[in-house]
């Protein structure tokens, strides 16, 4: 429960921080698309996860004050976990998911250098694990494989720094919250991945 609350609090704080800092943008400056390509990493005692996340969003609404853009889009998330943690163990877990994303995107096209995104997503994920333990000292030579699919849901945060016109270097944090299943303290950690990427805003010209 504690981890869930921390994630939630950080998320909401980030949301309000970006909201209050946003600058005006007029409605006729709605971008055509916002595209992102991110590469991420999650260190873990049992294995580190590397991931590629591609995301294309279509902004469809700006507030009157222009502080916030609502966008929707599709996200493709491909993650590979390379296992370690026991001598003789090697394995990979591949997760592929396609998610529908929805959420506000904040960005500053004129004189400011920063962009920020906050999105929630839900979609279909397929996960497969393959690996083996080959440990001669313990006389273990055994393989393991398993696969399943599930409904993913979670949060996605990114912050970008402009490196050229309409193009941002970004850092991101993605949490798949599918494992937060009950209120009794028996809670799985959300699957989180942190990373860097490039965000390209496609404008009308």
């Amino acid at each position: 429960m504690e981890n869930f609350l921390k994630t939630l609090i950080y998320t909401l704080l980030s949301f309000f921080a970006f909201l209050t800092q946003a600058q005006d943008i007029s409605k006729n400056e709605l971008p055509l698309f916002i595209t992102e390509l991110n590469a991420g990493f999650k260190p873990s005692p049992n294995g580190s996860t590397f991931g590629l996340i591609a995301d294309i969003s279509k902004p469809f609404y700006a507030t009157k004050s222009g502080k916030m853009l609502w966008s929707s889009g599709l996200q493709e998330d491909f993650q590979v976990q390379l296992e370690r943690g026991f001598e003789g163990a090697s394995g990979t877990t591949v997760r592929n998911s396609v998610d529908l994303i929805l959420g506000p995107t904040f960005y500053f096209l004129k004189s400011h250098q920063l962009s920020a995104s906050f999105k929630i997503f839900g979609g279909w994920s397929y996960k497969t694990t393959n690996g083996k333990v080959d440990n001669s000292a313990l006389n273990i030579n055994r393989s393991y494989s398993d696969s399943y699919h599930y409904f993913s849901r979670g949060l996605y945060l990114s912050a970008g720094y402009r490196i050229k016109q309409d193009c941002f270097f970004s850092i991101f944090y993605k949490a798949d919250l599918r494992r937060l299943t009950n209120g009794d303290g028996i809670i799985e950690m959300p699957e989180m991945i942190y990373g860097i990427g490039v965000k390209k805003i496609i404008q009308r010209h």
Partner: protein
Amino acid sequence: MNNKICLFLSGLLLFISCSNNELENVQISFEETITSKIINDDYPIYYFLPDSYTATKRYPVIYLLDGDWHTKRVAREINQLWKENAIPECILVGIGNANERMRDYTYPADKYNKGSGHGDKYYEFLRDELLPHVESKYSIDTTRRTIAGHSLGGFFTLYAMLKEEKETPLFHGFIAASASIFWVDGYLFGLEEALANQSSDLNCSLYLSAGSDEGVSTNVLIEEMYERLKNRDYPGFQIDYNVFKGKAHEGASIPGFVEGIKFNLNR
């Protein structure tokens, strides 16, 4: 604008806080703290008893490790199992102080985990201090003691099973959910082999479980331990093993306890 933000946040909260609280809530019957002279530390102890508890009857008992975390949820599950007549009435004893689980549930010490490796002392604490205390307090069938643990707790459960005196066993049922068998390069495999060399029988029952999504080095080693023990063909030994689909390490704990309790209490 503010309304839209509120609406959005409400939807978000609903989205991420979906829960499956389908079980009836229960209250822990009694809590106390006992001090171990052997370990020189305090242990909160949580008791869950049937409403119809009477001292004239002897009850099977489940000693649950990491009791701070698991007792309430397991009590709810047990309550449901009673309603379904799936298990006999029993007493649940959750043993707290989970902050020291690395010290208490492991053996031998791991060089990368300072302060670990005092599982032998913890077993002495159970044998010489906790169990006599609990069993002087409640009416317990001392031939039907089960110990249940998850992760490092699962490791300790297996350690206790493999290590304890076979003529005077402390426990008769064991539940090892997602046991950390990788501890110190698979130390438990050596214990298992030593046991097989010393004894031709093992009079107890063991339930092993894992989540399908725990990773190769966890799942493979649990599976290997299951097969090694099963292939010994100990006449008095009952063993079962289950993998919970789509569950990772934490999520596999409660299903492992529930199935393990059913397995051990109905044998």
